[in-house]
């Protein structure tokens, strides 16, 4: 009896222990690691979904804010149109010129070359105009990116394909003649144009005068201006890779700034009363 028991002990227990070890090593351990991997993936996807839900909520709020806007939509649309809209722009310019009494002698559209000084200087401007360079590999890429700097963070407020994340620039050169007061008036009008334009370069010179005249009241003016446009976003252009902390709120500050520029009350330029004077006379 004792011998039988010893035999069973010798046979069954070690064999079963060995089998258990084999099962653990070849089945349980890989499955356990596999399970942990699945758990990790699930946890990552869950957090991605949570993040997307958070973003979705914010975008819904953004949409609701956007829908509640009134004239501001038109204001932004005019300030930054979807195409060059040169006809409307020139019309506004000539209207400002006639209101100030200045005589426009020449208006030219200048080419904005890829990698040009201006395109490189302004980080929000695409480095090349797609119209000017349809085959350019750099066309439509923000200046920063084209210059080799890291691309902007891919957040929701700037979450577009690179070609959509910058502005196209139209450069206009104006030549005009007028008096000092008209010239100051013209600048006042240019500064609050509906189409946002930034004066880049100004050259003012006293008109060439005859020998009899001691000084001329007439000034010749050469102004270089930058206007901007941005093509509309197509549905599906958006890439969502932002975290839940990314601010997706309507940029009310920008609307206020825009209103300050466009709706600035006109005030005649101060000349003389406070000591200021015509610097060309």
């Amino acid at each position, binding site marked *: 009896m004792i011998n039988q*028991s010893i035999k*069973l002990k010798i046979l*069954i*227990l070690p*064999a079963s222990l060995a*089998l258990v070890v084999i*099962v*653990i090593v070849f*089945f349980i351990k890989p499955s356990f690691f596999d*399970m942990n991997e*699945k758990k990790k993936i699930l946890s990552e*996807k869950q957090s991605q*979904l949570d993040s997307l*839900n958070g*973003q*979705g909520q914010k*975008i819904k709020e*953004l*949409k609701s804010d*956007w829908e509640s806007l009134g004239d501001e939509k038109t204001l*932004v649309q005019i300030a*930054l149109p979807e195409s060059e809209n040169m006809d409307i722009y020139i019309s506004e310019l000539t209207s400002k010129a006639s209101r100030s009494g200045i005589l426009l002698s020449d208006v030219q559209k200048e080419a904005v070359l890829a990698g040009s000084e*201006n395109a490189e*200087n*302004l*980080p*929000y401007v695409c480095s090349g105009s797609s119209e000017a360079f349809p085959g350019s590999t750099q066309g439509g890429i923000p200046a920063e990116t084209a210059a080799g700097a890291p691309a902007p963070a891919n957040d929701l*407020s700037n*979450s577009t394909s690179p070609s959509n*994340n910058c502005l196209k620039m139209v450069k206009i050169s104006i030549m005009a003649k007028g008096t000092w007061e008209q010239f100051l008036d013209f*600048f006042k009008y240019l500064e609050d144009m509906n189409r*946002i334009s*930034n*004066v*880049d*370069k*100004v*050259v*003012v*010179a006293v008109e060439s005068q005859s*020998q009899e005249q001691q000084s001329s009241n007439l000034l010749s003016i050469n102004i270089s201006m930058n206007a*901007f446009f*941005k093509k509309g*976003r197509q*549905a*599906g*252009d*958006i890439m969502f890779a932002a975290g839940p902390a990314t601010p*997706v709120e*309507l*940029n009310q500050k*920008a*609307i206020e*700034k825009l209103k300050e520029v466009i709706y600035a009350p006109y005030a005649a*330029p101060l000349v003389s009363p*406070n000591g*200021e*004077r015509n*610097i*060309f006379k």
Partner: protein
Amino acid sequence: MVTNINLSSPEVAEKRTLTGKSALILSIVLFAIVAAAYAAIIFLKSRYESQEKKVSAAIAEKQGEMKGSSFSDALDFQERLNLLDKVVDDHPYWDDLFVKMGSYMIPEVRLDKFSGTKDGAGGGLVEITGTAANMDALSRELILLKDLPGVDSFEFKQAGEKIVQGTDQQSGILFSVDLKMNQSAFQK
């Protein structure tokens, strides 16, 4: 008379030995535990898999919804605002600079040419050429110009007698100066 005497101590007498039956039971229990652990792992794995599929589908659906046209207008508007914000920050006010400059020009000095160029940093370079009545007026003007608000650096380039064409008469001192302006010079 036979007398059975247990010579082992009471502790030894109570100690159970592992019988074949108990070894079998122990093995079966061990197998049962291992099988249960394996089954639990397989169950959890398949559960995670099915949950992952559901979450992936929810992500795809959410992304599809967010990429849809219903939000694109609002997002496009937001993007325009962000870009406009930068453009407006860069908006220069040249007339203020001219008027300010007027306060820093003495009556004996007038400009013949003003050339200003903005740079990407918000500042700019102003090159002026003018005529002063005499050297004394010019020196006073140069001192005054250095104090013009928004001037970062001042570079005097040249000054010389201005001769009226056709005559040999001097009509003042012709001078040119470069002013490196900072961003505040172009702001309201």
